[in-house]
């Protein structure tokens, strides 16, 4: 199985007529079994179509046209309009929102997240590339065009969670080359506040029988790794986790942000060194290089099954 999405998932693309969104739509339609993109929304563009996907002015119109609830939405509208688009999706019954847009102020993200919580919906992102279930479905630009995504991702037992979209593919490709497929890979976004953190996705992977191990990509900034370490310890997780930490050099440069908006060392707990220590305490192996990850994963899976 997979987490979050599977071959039955229906979704819409908000901002579908934008250049990136047009490409993303094509990629998702082409990948795996072909995503069920049941509509697109761009205000004022009712009646058009993008690669055969009908365009609507409102999410409500898309839901009505579909004739029933829609599972998800990929939001690609500009930052100033993102919050409104996400609220619209959730208010119309959508339970899974992938926000691709970057440079959204925290206040807006926090409002969307709070609204989602009230409506029992989940947000992935912002500033992320989405979710992929190898050979089945992808929701978002993750992995790129279908044929490129097929090269990097293969079905298997490793769950991947990454703060960097590009590194989600790099790590999955490394796993694939070593014969380790992925159950689901999620690009969670690199901002300071995101809809779903490592710890919030762990219960889903924990419940997914196909998943036997987790690989995460992480960076300095924020307290998300500490939250994960705490979750793992408190929940006695069955899943071995292998982490890769990039941006170690940033420890020497407090106050500066590289890579993603969320990477800024403001306090001691934000540093790479501190995070590595926290993860290690919780039994999470931190690989020095990405190429070491597959072997560590294999040996950790073997250890667990030997117990």
């Amino acid at each position, binding site marked *: 199985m997979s987490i979050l999405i599977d071959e039955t998932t229906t979704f819409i693309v908000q901002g579908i007529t934008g250049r990136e969104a047009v490409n993303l739509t094509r990629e998702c339609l082409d990948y795996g079994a072909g995503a069920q993109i049941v509509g697109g929304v761009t205000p004022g563009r009712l009646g058009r179509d993008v690669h055969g996907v009908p365009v609507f002015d409102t999410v409500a119109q898309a839901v009505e046209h579909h004739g029933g609830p829609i599972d998800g939405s990929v939001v690609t509208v500009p930052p100033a309009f993102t919050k409104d688009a996400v609220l619209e999706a959730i208010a119309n019954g959508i339970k899974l929102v992938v926000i691709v847009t970057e440079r959204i102020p925290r206040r807006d993200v926090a409002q969307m997240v*709070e609204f989602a919580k009230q409506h029992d919906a989940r947000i992935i992102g912002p500033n992320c590339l989405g979710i992929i279930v190898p050979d089945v479905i992808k929701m978002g630009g993750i992995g790129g065009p279908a044929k*490129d995504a097929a090269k990097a991702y293969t079905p298997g037992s490793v769950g991947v969670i990454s703060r960097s979209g590009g590194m989600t593919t790099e790590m999955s490709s490394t796993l694939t080359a070593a014969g380790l497929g992925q159950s689901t890979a999620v690009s969670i976004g690199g901002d*300071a506040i995101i809809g779903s953190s490592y710890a919030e996705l762990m219960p889903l992977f924990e419940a997914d029988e196909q998943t036997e191990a987790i690989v995460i990509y992480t960076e300095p900034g924020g307290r998300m790794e500490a*939250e994960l370490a705490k979750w793992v310890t408190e929940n006695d997780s069955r899943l071995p986790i292998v982490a890769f930490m990039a941006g170690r050099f940033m420890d020497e*440069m407090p106050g500066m942000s*590289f890579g993603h*908006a969320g*990477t800024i060392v403001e306090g001691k707990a934000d540093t790479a060194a501190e995070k590595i220590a926290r993860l290690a305490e919780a039994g999470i192996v931190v690989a020095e290089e990405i190429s070491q990850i597959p072997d560590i994963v294999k040996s950790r899976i073997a250890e667990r099954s030997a117990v």
Partner: protein
Amino acid sequence: MRFFEYESRQIVKAAGIPVSAHGFARTPEEARRIAEEIAAPVVIKSQVLTGGRMKAGGVRFADTPEEAAREAEFVLGLEINGHMPRGVLVDSKVAVKQEFYAGVVWDGIRKQPVMLFSDMGGIDIEEVAETHPDRVGRGHFSNLTEVSDYEAKQVIASIGVTGSALTRATPILARLARLFVRHDMTLAEINPLALLEDGRFVAVDAHMDMENEARGRQQTLLKALGVGDEETRQAREATPFELAGEEVDAQDHRGVAGNVTEFDGNLGLVIGAGGGSLTLFDAVRAHGGKPANYCEIGGNPSVAKACGLAKLVLQKPGVEKIAVMMSIVSNTRVDIVARGVIKACLELGYDPAEKIAIFRIPGAWEDEGFKILKKYGVEYCDRSVSMHEAARRAVEKIQGVAA
């Protein structure tokens, strides 16, 4: 983006929070005038965007306007952590009965802002939180509705503050919380918040940090404070090399060549994207390499942009070779970046095979890209060579040069 203390005070005051009588001065003469107006002993505080000014001697006391002018002259000429002050704040020396702390920050885990209040003001709040956790009150609040006074009251009362101190501090913390939300702050703190002998509270120092992403919609505030668009207010000022990087990025709207940052090594880096750059920069250092710069290319840059960035890096004094590396790309095109970096070498009269230590960008259009690299004799590799291995090869080559 960070605000100077004198700006933070203005923001706090505009939100209805009382502040001690003060003025901002750029010259000793202005400092004297402000001291005359205050007509009481004053404190002269350096206005720099860095911590530790107290330790560095950037805070001085003066009893008379003449003394104020003298001290201001000293502080205006005092460099602190590499920053020259923009001016001085001339603040009245208030009769403080007790120092408190009031602050609002984001909690990325709860995804809500949190109000903080302590009766141990005047020192670093993180320290207080560690040594005296019971003396720091906390309260998360919703972002969907405006924070109510009672929420602030609960936080303050939780550490045992009562009486008129409680009723007077409540609106101050609540207003701070509201301005935090209204102005997209990432940090808003008053430290110390002084309780005076007469029972009033005044903000004696304030520190505000606003989210860069919100600059667009906070124009009204920024204009009122006189903060121009050109002021980045980053932790460290951009060097000419970094400004040139920004120009390369701005030359067209295709793709990004962002976050160009200067270091003093000999290996120039044309790397991407966000996470890939962080990984590669670490990898070069882990193998003993000395990067000349950091950067992030991505989002499918034009040939001209890749070329411009590579040229900039190649021309940086001390750069012997460049390494062109990215994590697997799906949007950015391998062939376009290959064209750009080779063109940069050619236009500067260099042999690409000699100047480009390694080219490791796998992904979209790689076959076409590899044809170009092959023609110019540049060493390249596909995804079977890891990012760390590519970095190692680049470092090895350049160390051969140095020897």
